[in-house]
Each structure stands twice: as structure tokens, then as C-alpha cells.
């Protein structure tokens, strides 16, 4: 939904300065606590990973093995990978936690993902036509995306994307939708595609050949277990990420609105373009603190463990400026996203289709059906 700015330029400036002040304060506080925290998360992740791999040797422990490996992959992708690759821990000077060196346990090569995510998505958040994460080039997720009969499959595409999310994220950087539209040349993709193939080969070799083979006669259960862990990670990350920008009430912006944008307006757009999930500490950890998507989008390079600490302050500032702070339980946000995926599958009210009759959620919109 497009949004016209409710604040004056002066208010936006003030709002931006308040956000800058939070950022600067937290930056100056970074230290041993943050370092210890992320190192402990890494330790836990590696522990779950090794335990998961080992438990496949004990057939009765298969569910435990899958659970361990799933937790490992989720921690690796969310609280560690996503956040480290944002540069949140670059200040530590540890090559193992450096945004330029970290590689994560998923199909997408870090290099491509950082470009598409850190730059394109975080800079042009929710600007239609610029932020490729609005529907990922596959889904219709906003009223201002033009409807097309293709989108009748919206729920099916969303389901498939959820199940194969790690593959989808990897292929996202190829911008296939732009190639279809003739805006991008396949030649530009050759190097990218080669990198993706290399990474996929390594991931497939590890999860579907080497580790199953190492368990000898248990090849099949290990293979299925690894696949299940990957599915569980896919489903979880998809759901968390979709709750970040797609629940009802999240604003999108036009390119005109964001021309020569001030820093204050950038913050404003990040706030209104994101949504939080309320929940326990465990939920925050397993979501890589993307349950605080708003704080993450305001301060993408602050260590994510700081988001819950500053959330109250951000919320209070939003209240003073009369700005919406979109938050809700996981159930509420997921329901809202699901509803939207189904709703956006159907053409908007008043769409006319000469010679075609379409069921539009109880509304009839073509002349033929009116005649009928």
C-alpha cells in the first residue's frame, strides 16, 4: 500500500536525529558482552551440528538428530549468518565473524546474497520497482503490484517457495523476472550462476552424499534426515522473513516518493516498511532477532542482540511522532501474511476482463457476469 508522508521535513529531520543518536550510543557501547554472546551462539550452533551429524549413527535417535541439525542450520543462517554478513560484528576484527569472509550453510553464496540483501533490499526497502524482495519476483504481495492471471497461483508459489526457500534465495540473485521482461541480459548472470552452482554443489555433496555415505548402511535415513532438516530450516526462515515485511499495515513506497530522500525519510520508510513479532527470548534467538525487523531495518549493522534492548525506546519515539509500530504475535503476523497471499492472488475490485469471467472473492467484475 502506498503511503504519503505524514511528517513534515523538519519532523523527519528530528526523527532521523533521534534514530542516529540511538545508533551512535549503542555503537559506543559495543564490547565484550556482544563478542561473548555471538561466540556462544557459534559454539552452540557448532555443537548442535556435530551432535546432529553424530546422532544419525543411532537409528532410534533419528528425530533428535534431525532436530539438532535443524537448530544448527537455523542458528547458522539467522542469528549468525544473516547478522554477521550485515557487518554487525566486523568491529571485532575476527575473520571468523567478518562480513567479507563469512559463508553460511545454505545454497546462496554469501557474495551474491550480500549484494541483493544488504544493498538492494536494505537501501530500497519497500520501494515498488526497486526492492526485489517485494514478492521476490514470484508473488503478488502488494496491491500496487499489477495483477495478472499468473498470480492466481500465488498460494501455490508461496508454498513451493517456502519448501524450497534456500534454493529460491540462491536463484533470487539471478533476477530471472528481469530477464523475462528483457531488462537484464543472461550474459550478466554467467559468473553469478557459476558461483551459485559451485556453492550448491558443495552443499549437496555434504548433505546428500558425504554424510549419508559416512553412515554406511544408514545412508537412506541420514539422507532423508538431512533433507528434513533443510526443509525445517526452509519453512522456519521463510515464515520469519515473510512476517518481516508482508503483514497487513506495512507500507510500500513509490520511486517518486523516495527521490532525493533525506536520512530522516529513509528511517521513516524503514520503520513503516517493517513489522515485528512478539514472543519469547527463544523466538528472538531462533529468528536471528528478525522478530525485531523494525529495529533491524533502522540499524542493520548493529549487533542483533541489541534490538530487543532498544525496541522500547524506538517504540516510544514512534508514539511521539504518531507513527505506526507494526507488531504482533507470530500467529497473528503469519495469519495476516497468509491472508494477504490469498487475497493478492485475486484481481483487485473493479478489474475488467473482456471476454473472461473470473471469480473474485464473491465480487463479480466483468460486464458478462453482470449480464448473467
Amino acid at each position: 500500500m502506498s503511503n504519503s508522508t505524514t511528517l513534515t521535513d523538519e519532523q523527519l529531520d528530528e526523527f532521523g536525529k533521534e534514530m542516529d543518536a540511538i545508533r551512535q550510543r549503542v555503537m559506543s557501547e559495543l564490547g565484550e558482552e556482544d563478542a561473548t554472546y555471538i561466540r556462544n551462539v557459534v559454539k552452540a550452533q557448532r555443537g548442535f551440528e556435530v551432535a546432529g551429524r553424530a546422532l544419525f549413527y543411532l537409528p532410534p535417535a533419528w528425530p533428535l538428530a534431525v532436530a539438532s541439525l535443524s537448530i544448527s542450520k537455523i542458528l547458522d543462517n539467522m542469528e549468525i549468518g544473516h547478522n554477521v554478513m550485515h557487518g554487525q560484528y566486523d568491529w571485532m576484527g575476527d575473520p571468523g565473524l567478518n562480513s567479507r569472509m563469512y559463508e553460511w550453510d545454505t545454497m546462496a553464496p554469501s557474495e551474491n546474497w550480500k549484494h541483493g540483501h544488504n544493498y538492494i533490499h536494505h537501501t530500497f526497502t519497500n520501494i515498488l520497482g526497486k526492492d526485489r524482495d517485494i514478492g521476490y519476483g514470484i508473488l503478488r504481495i502488494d496491491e500496487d503490484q499489477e495483477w495478472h492471471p499468473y498470480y492466481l497461483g500465488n498460494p501455490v508459489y508461496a508454498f513451493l517457495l517456502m519448501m524450497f526457500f534456500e534454493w529460491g534465495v540462491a536463484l533470487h540473485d539471478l533476477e530471472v523476472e528481469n530477464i523475462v521482461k528483457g531488462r537484464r541480459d543472461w550474459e550478466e548472470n554467467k559468473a553469478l550462476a557459476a558461483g551459485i552452482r559451485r556453492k550448491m554443489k558443495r552443499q549437496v555433496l555434504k548433505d546428500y552424499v558425504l554424510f549419508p555415505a559416512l553412515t554406511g548402511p544408514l545412508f537412506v535415513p541420514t539422507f532423508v534426515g538431512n533433507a528434513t532438516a533443510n526443509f525445517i530450516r526452509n519453512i522456519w526462515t521463510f515464515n520469519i522473513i515473510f512476517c518481516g515485511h508482508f503483514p497487513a499495515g506495512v507500507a510500500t513506497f513509490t520511486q517518486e516518493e523516495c527521490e532525493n530522500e533525506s536520512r530522516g525519510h529513509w528511517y521513516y520508510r524503514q520503520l513503516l516498511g517493517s513489522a515485528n513479532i512478539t514472543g519469547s527470548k527463544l523466538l528472538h534467538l531462533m529468528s536471528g532477532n528478525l522478530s525485531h525487523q523494525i529495529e533491524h531495518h533502522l540499524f542493520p549493522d548493529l549487533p542483533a542482540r541489541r534490538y530487543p534492548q532498544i525496541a522500547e525506546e524506538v517504540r516510544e519515539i514512534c508514539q511521539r511522532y504518531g507513527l505506526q509500530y507494526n507488531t504482533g504475535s507470530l500467529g497473528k503476523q503469519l495469519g495476516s501474511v497468509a491472508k494477504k497471499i490469498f487475497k493478492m492472488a485475486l484481481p483487485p475490485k473493479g478489474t475488467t476482463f473482456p471476454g473472461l469471467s473470473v471469480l473474485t472473492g464473491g465480487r463479480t467484475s466483468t460486464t458478462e457476469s453482470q449480464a448473467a
Partner: protein
Amino acid sequence: MSIVSNLLASRALEALTSPHGVDRYLELVNPMWAAREVRARIVDVHREVDVAGHPPVATITLQPTSTWQGHRAGQHVQLGVEIDGARRTTRVFTVSSPDSRQGDRFTVTMRANPDGLVSRHLVEAEVGTMVHLSQAQGEFILPDQVPEHVLFISGGSGITPVMSMLRSLQRRTHRGRVSFVHYAQSPEHQIFAAELAEIARTGYGVDVHLLHPELGDPALSPAWLERLVPGYRDVPTWACGPAPLIDAVQKAYTDSDVLQVEYFKAPVVSTGAAEGDVTFTRAGSTAANTGATLLEQAEAAGLKPEFGCRMGICFSCTATKKEGTVTNVLTGETSSLPDEDIRICVSSPQGDCAIDL
């Protein structure tokens, strides 16, 4: 040992531990286990010089992981420590012990200058502390065939590489002559004093000259050097020390090709303004500092560095600042660390600055 290390460095294990690599797992079990990286445990900290009111000099003994490939006398190593348990900071130190082989213990000797973040940390470090290492580096080394007569000239803590060389020669029972010339502030400030006195007394063919210009000893000049080491311009010479000493040495060896030098760089100090030059080290070009961000200055110089948001959030433009002071235009924070990763879209240089672009 070698079977284990071959296994640890094998492609099979690399594939199984992809994408993180073997070392990311080993380090969690035992920090002294490594397949590729080099780390070391501090096993001794020994004060060489401790004059009240002056920065102390200390020798740190390191037990490296088995991945340490050894060093040749005269080489240095990058050594990283966790400052305040969070910020790994890396500096270069010269190895002071004789040639080492794979996995051998070795020592580094350093003066803990007040602005030396890492050296101050190290001289106070507790035994058992882990540090991060590179492999040994540097071309300031003795040749395999050591010449009949060699001359070492050093000043202050520049004694470390030539001390490593002298110790190696002692161990190799070098039969030729060694002339060892060292400048120190005073006898109290003499690093390795006892060992040098012992070598002077018993060493075969080693002349040790310890000089203290502040107490009236002659400064280095061609005439004086000629008197000390006749025909010195034909004697293979290794010199290490502060820049003024090296300048004097280089003048004494004009048109001679027997000299090898190593000197400490004076740190580039911020002038607090848009003065000085910006050097793009990879492109090999230099431009006057306009005070704009380094990204803008690089683009103005015709370079095309990678960039993204241009507002300091996406880290696409991160590059290594080799030296100089930069200000973060968002926060006003300044930083002067050498070899520091910075986001060039929000960093503007103050005074001279070199960036790896």
C-alpha cells in the same frame, strides 16, 4: 603428527566442514588445534628493559600451533590479540629467536610504546593467553650461504631481527666474522645486554659495539664506520632501526649494493583537516585530499570501487585503509589504526591517507 595434520588439511574434511572449514570446529575443542590457521599460546613474558618513566621492552615466548611453518632469522610475523576481550587488533612484530622449524617455539621482542595498543597488551599479558598469527614474512633475511664477514647495524628495538640473525649464526657455528653495531639511549636501555656481553666475551669472531650517542658516543658517519669496520662498503650489511638511523646508514652506503635495510614507519598523524594526499595503493595513484569521502575521492580520481547504498549501511564498499586517519562522516568518530577495514562511502580522510583501492 603428520598423518593427523594431513588428514585435518584434507579435501574430504574440507568438504564435510563446508562452508566453515575445519579450523572453525577445531578451535572450539582446543585452541591449539588447527589445520590451516596459525595461533599461539603465550608461554612466557620476560621484561628485557624496564627503566622507570620509559616504555618497557619485553620478550614474549610463543608456543605456536603445528601449522606454524617456522621462520628465517630477520623475518616478522603479524600478531593479533583480543583487546578488551572483543576487538582483535593485529600488529607486526619481529621474531627475535633464532631460525625456527615447523611448530617450534619462538620469541618476539617489542617496546610497549604508549600508543602501541597491541604491544602494551602483550607485555602485560598472562601466560596462557592465545594470540593469532600469520606465517613468518619478510625478505630481510640472511642468505643460505652466509658470507665470510657480515655487519649488523641496529638502533633501539630494531635490534630484534639482527639479534635473531646473530643467534642463528651462533647456533650454526658460523666460522666467519660478525660485526655487531647497536645504538641505544643508554646502557640501562640496552636490550639483550647480558647475552650480548656474553657473546662479546666468548663469541668466536664477533665484535660487539654498543653505542650511546646521548652519552657522547659518536653518531653514525662514513668515516666513523670505516674506522670501526675497515672496508665496510664491501661487507654485506643488515641494518634495522628508526628512520633517521637508516637514513644515515643509506648515505654511508651510497653506490654500494651490500646493504639491506628495514625500518619502522613513523605513524601518519591526523592533521585534523582536508590536507595531505590520498594514495590509492592498488591503482598506484595519488591525489590531493579534498576532504570528501574516500569513495567520492576515488571516483574523482577515475577509479571505480564497488559501492552500494552510499550511506554506510550495506558494507559493499568496505576497503582496507593501509594508513592514515579517517573520520566517519555519520558519527564524527575518527580512527587511525593501520590496515583497518572501513566503509569508504562514509569515511573522509584527515591528512595523508593510503587506501587499498
